[in-house]
């Protein structure tokens, strides 16, 4: 199954929302972020990966360290709620297109 990594799905998870709140004020390393949670480090890494893939987080390299910071523009999209609305129409229209491509008139 191909898991859709969209913003909508990303913010549906409470841990990921907590991560976003955490890095909202300052850029942090994965280790510093993980220290705030009881969950295992690989689990936090997975959450960071998903948030980065859907562009809610941005990575910046400082020497050997990678810091995560919030992508303000993308967060604004979420705040405006346009993305879930768009995603709903996208899904609906994709379905329409698939059905109509298979459509064969009876007559």
């Amino acid at each position, binding site marked *: 199954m191909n898991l*859709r*990594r*969209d913003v*909508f*799905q990303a913010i*549906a998870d409470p841990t990921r929302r907590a991560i976003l709140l955490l890095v909202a004020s300052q850029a942090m390393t994965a280790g510093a972020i993980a220290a705030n949670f009881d969950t295992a480090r690989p689990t936090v890494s997975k959450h960071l990966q998903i948030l980065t893939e*859907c562009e809610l987080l941005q990575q910046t390299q400082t020497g050997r360290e990678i810091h995560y910071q919030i992508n303000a523009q993308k967060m604004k999209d979420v705040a*405006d*709620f*346009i993305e*879930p*609305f*768009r*995603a*709903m*129409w*996208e899904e*609906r*229209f*994709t*379905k*329409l*297109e698939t*059905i*109509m*491509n298979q*459509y064969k008139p009876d007559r």
Partner: protein
Amino acid sequence: MERKTTIQAETGKQDLRITREFDLPVELLFKAYTEPDLVAQWMETNVLKLENKNHGSWQFETTNAQNEVVFRANGVIHAVIPNRKITRTFEMESAPASAIRFDVQLEFLEFESLTATTSRLIIHQVYRSVASRNRMMQLPFAQGLNIAHNRLQAIINQVN
């Protein structure tokens, strides 16, 4: 991530535009909006009524696995120009338990032929107020979470 569908919703305005290009001739795209069987398939709803004519009306109803009505919407079809345009209203009927009311909205659906095999649909929705437009846009956020749970439940039911 595919971004075929675009939403234009300016801050402080009470309308919005949904635009999407399809790999379909315009005749097939139009048919998807006017053939009750096809509407039922892609909208995943029961089409109780769909009169594609000037001064016609429509009504859709969606039920869950327990056959309970979870969504019902209706409106009037103001005007139809085949393969070109549908002007209609859309009103969501509130669930009995819900305190939220949604005002009727006006929709202009414009179908454009791009090539012999591609087409474009522009849906221009006009709401009663800026607040009601914004509330409608926020709705999928709550709905999406429900859908995710329902899908999970459906998968679990299959496994059991």
